[in-house]
């Protein structure tokens, strides 16, 4: 699948989400996946799901709303603790989507 979209959210949709999105793109690229990301505030996730139609959501804060998209905890992308493992999980998940 060429057009994989990941929504990255944090408190303001600016600081940690941008850092997390940068890191995620690099880690997924090294796993052979090219993704498009969009950042948003945690409070805007529900709205962004309908407009951006992400294949997965990565959030550095809790996502309070229920959305029909898989949500990954993005903190490892900021702290580095478990970042490679998270990238593996997201890559594996995205590959299951493109296989179906």
């Amino acid at each position, binding site marked *: 699948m060429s057009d994989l979209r990941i929504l990255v959210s*944090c*408190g*303001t949709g*600016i*600081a*940690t989400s*941008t*850092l997390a999105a*940068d890191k995620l793109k690099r880690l997924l690229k090294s796993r052979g996946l090219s993704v498009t990301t969009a950042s948003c505030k*945690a409070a805007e996730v529900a709205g962004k799901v309908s407009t951006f139609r992400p294949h997965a959501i990565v959030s*550095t*804060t*809790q996502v309070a709303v229920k959305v029909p998209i898989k949500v990954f*905890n993005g*903190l490892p992308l*900021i*702290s*580095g*603790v478990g970042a490679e493992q998270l990238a593996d999980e997201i890559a594996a998940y995205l590959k299951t989507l493109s296989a179906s």
Partner: protein
Amino acid sequence: MEPIELELTLSGVTMPVLVLWDLAVKSKEELFACVHAELLQRGQVRPSYLEGVLERERQYPTGLDFGDFAVALPHVDFEHVIQPALVVALLSEALPFQAMDDPARQHLCRLAIFPVLTSGDAQLAFLQAVTCALQEPGFYEHFVALQTPQEIKACLQSMLQIAVNEG
């Protein structure tokens, strides 16, 4: 120790950095008030900064676990900021901050880094440099053990080098 002021330059962007070292504060509120007073005095934030940073931390806490230690990254919305800055506060005693990903948990933090920003993009590189350096094995332990303004300034400069090498 008196507040330390320095400037860091990364990819052509210069960021004033204020270091508050061995700060004896007993609560987050006291810490935020202290940072607010220093920034206000330098004309870097509006009077609304204090309420802004407190409210933001309540809504979206910033305690971040790096494995062997945790660091708080108290954010604030752009509207409270006049001039961008990065505040590095080392507390004499660790304080509990709620975890960024789960407000029900707390992390004890001795180091708090305040990104005081007026826009995203270029200014974010400094926050990225900090989180990047904190991931380097041994960096945190070395940093918090520093004793003199000269050592602290030199270490912060070297931190940018880590970021450049990683990027």
